[in-house]
């Protein structure tokens, strides 16, 4: 009888290491596939409202029914796509429309008729009520103006 005791400590055959490695790689790949298959629907589900808002921002024109009756020296807030906007009928009869989202940190601005300016209450930003230019305070950029067309039955606001 030959002495075979030297074979006993060899637990892993040479090929075993590579099959084990292959198994771990396959298991890892399957795990990743499962994670992706679960994460993708959940991400799309939770992202639905922002996707809908993105579609809404694709709007290029808004018709404001009966807005032509807006008295001079007053303002109308409306939604242009997903964000708020201002329609100002100035005391001198001019119609001006611009976005109402402050360029500083995104608060909604307001028109102040007595001072004839646009003011953001959050951090005191002030804009010109005719051009949208940032006049004072922290806002870094002017408010974007929209094109305004007044008809007999409505005011049509469109992207400039």
């Amino acid at each position, binding site marked *: 009888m030959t002495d075979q005791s030297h074979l006993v400590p060899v637990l892993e055959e040479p090929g075993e290491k590579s099959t084990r490695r292959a198994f771990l790689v396959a298991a890892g790949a399957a795990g990743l596939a499962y994670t992706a298959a679960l994460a993708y*629907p*959940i991400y799309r*589900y939770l992202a*639905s409202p922002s996707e809908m808002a993105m579609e809404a921002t694709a709007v290029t024109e808004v018709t404001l029914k009966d807005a032509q009756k807006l008295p001079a020296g007053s303002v109308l807030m409306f939604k242009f796509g997903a964000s708020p906007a201002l329609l100002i009928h100035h005391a001198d009869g001019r119609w001006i429309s611009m976005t109402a989202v402050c360029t500083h940190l995104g608060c909604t601005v307001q028109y102040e008729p007595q001072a004839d300016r646009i003011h953001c209450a959050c951090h005191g930003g002030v804009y010109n009520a005719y051009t949208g230019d940032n006049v004072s305070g922290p806002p870094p950029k002017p408010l974007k103006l929209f094109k305004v067309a007044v008809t007999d039955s409505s005011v049509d606001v469109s992207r400039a």
Partner: protein
Amino acid sequence: MTSKSIYDWIDERLGLSELAAFARHKTVPVHSQSFWYYWGGISLFLFLVQCFTGVLLLVYFRPGAEAYESVRQITFVMHFGWLIRSAHAWSASLMIFSILVHMFSVYFMKAYRKPREFGWLSGMALLGIASVFGFSGYLLPMDELSYFATKVGLQIPAAIPWIGPAIANMLRGGPDVSEFTVQRFFALHVVVLPAIFVPLLGFHLWLVQRHGNASPPCVEALPPAERKSMPFLPNFLRKDLAMWLISLNILALLASVFPWSLGKAFDPLAPAPLGIHPEWYFMSPFEMLKLLGMIPWLQGEPGEIAGILLFTLGIALWVLIPFYDKDKESGQRARAAHYFGLLAVFALLATTVIGYWTIR
């Protein structure tokens, strides 16, 4: 800092090594009935799925008057909303199913005997709460089916003499199912029930760690040397996780191939749709009440009361079984308990089959 010293720092404060030592020594008996040990874990997995999908539904669900509209939005407007809703509904059914399998396996393996009585009692309470979860969740979409299911279901507490109508009105929030009902069922479903269920589940799981898995009497009768077991870590856990993966696959298949439907919005003036029937796990009690009502001298209210009494008695006997069948030996009482279990299984299956057979 090395990972060893980070571990030591945490271990000194939280006692991780004690937990690790406990886990290392935990074993699970191996015998011909070991398969049934997985069903508690499967129920737990499906409960976790319920928590996860439930929170996702909560993101868009609006209780009250807008309930139907919000579920319609989830199902048809939000990306994959139909899939998440379908997974929640299917997982609810599968969870009740696996809890029932778990319960009957515990019953027939006589795993409720000393020292595991509290495990049995807490398990029965968990099943009871799970069925209230099912009942309250069924109303939330406020479509035709859920409206009538809730209307009919609440007739059962309403039939309790004297106090029944007051209880039913309290549950409904008025004399009829309305937006007030969906609002309070919502509070029940997402706040009250989880607040009771989760600690009770913790207690149940703690008891399993404390007493370990019970062996059936035939295995316990063997001399210790002939009993086999496997370590919990990693052997049993690995098989447990494999079961979870299989459950996930079955759930994904059911939820995507058979998406849960949404009926028409409820209309308190519309007649009940044809073929209306309760969820499968309420079919048996529903059918038993119907059958009792067919006995000539039990028609109407006496039948309802007799039915409720019979249920209460049957459930009480079932819950109290550890105190009746407590001897280790398989004597007269153990055999009686076994036959009572077979009778319960037969009655549940038979009435469920009759129920589905007679849907008109």
